[in-house]
């Protein structure tokens, strides 16, 4: 491992971004190794196909490489910013496939065919633990609340579309989204306490 790579590995994401903005491939490689797994997993969760998930992940990371300097730390963490880019690209791909229905549950047998992550770094292991906690928090939501959140976030549907799909008034969808998000937030706050 080169000294340069070792140095980049010690930097926080926010410190890597200026280097990426200066077109430093070593810094970007560290960034990819840190977040490529969750990015790919999110893309797969949304598009449901391995090849499409790879395309989404590649496009998102190349977009970040080419626009890294545009990251604004005032608007959140680098990881959240990166995941929002992956999510947007994945939703764009979903929408470009006319008639493709999104997956509706958090448990999806199809993804069991995928190879699970083999070696987790300490940081990744902590995130894995967090992910488990978050899934737990989502699992405590009433089904009608988790469904509208999932249709919106992972399916890319608008609240009006969700209301039509579920055959419920728009106000009901708004209320379920709001309540669901507040419950997740409450669970997270409890977990931290």
């Amino acid at each position, binding site marked *: 491992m080169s000294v340069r790579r070792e140095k980049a590995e010690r930097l926080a994401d926010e410190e890597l971004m200026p280097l990426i903005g200066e077109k*430093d491939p070593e810094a970007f490689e560290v960034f990819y190794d840190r977040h490529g797994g969750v*990015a790919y997993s999110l893309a797969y969760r949304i598009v449901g196909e391995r090849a499409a998930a790879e395309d989404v992940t590649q496009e998102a990371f*190349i977009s970040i490489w080419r626009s890294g300097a545009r990251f604004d730390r005032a608007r959140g963490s680098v990881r959240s910013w990166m*995941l929002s880019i992956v999510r947007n690209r994945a939703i764009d791909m979903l929408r470009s496939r006319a008639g493709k229905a999104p997956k509706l549950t958090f448990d999806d047998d199809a993804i069991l065919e995928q190879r699970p992550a083999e070696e987790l770094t300490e940081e990744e292991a902590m995130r894995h633990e967090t992910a488990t906690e978050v899934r737990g928090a989502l699992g405590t939501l009433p089904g009608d609340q988790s469904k509208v959140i999932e249709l919106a976030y992972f399916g890319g549907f608008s609240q009006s579309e969700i209301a039509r799909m579920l055959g419920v008034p728009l106000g009901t969808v708004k209320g379920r989204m709001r309540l669901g998000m507040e419950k997740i937030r409450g669970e997270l706050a409890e977990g931290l306490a």
Partner: protein
Amino acid sequence: MTENDHERWSENLAAYMLGALDAAEAAELERHREGCERCQAEIRWLTPALDALPESVERFAPPAELRSRVMSEVRADARQAGADRAAAEGGLWHRAAGWLRGLGSGPMGLRPVVGFAAAVLVVVAVAGYAIGGGIGSSSDGTGAGTVVAGHAPGVTARIVMAGEGGTLHLANVRQLPEERVLEAWVQRRGAVTPVRALFVPDREGRATTTIADMKGVETVMVTTEPPGGSRSPTSAPIVTVPIPQ
């Protein structure tokens, strides 16, 4: 702003954060949010819940090939950016880099490697100036002289002039894949033509070819080609040698 204004938008905040408003609604809410501290506070409060959603997905290791593809594109971009910076800084070499870029935009699909080629060009250019002899600066009184020396990663190139021609010596050339040979090219006034003889490296990685006519040559480069050679370059140059005029 009235309390009613806030209540009206507050009920849409979760949908807004989840990307479930249409574009017009989202734009309107964003305008409202700018001046509404309560909305801003609510968004800040709910942000961890939003951030938790992508973190909740089941994790799978991305294929190693994906990393290779991403990093290959990234490194090509970085080389291009470096070459662009260097080309912008150098008058003579800027012209030569443009020639290489022109090659990249042709039908041979060289675009991803242009940055590499241009970067090599600059390295070689610096070495050429450092040597400073130039064509005809004979060191032994025979009319022959070493023009330039440089390297692509690992490869060094040297052209020894003799009369109107020259001999290109390469060192540290990696063994070629099967069914590939080295082909040298010369460029005059923007036109690229092949040097007739094809060649291959020996076991020590040395390769030599003769360029019969060096008159007016601005750049010499070497690519790997299929057996029998090509009419125009089909791969990235492994080395590019600009000839001082």
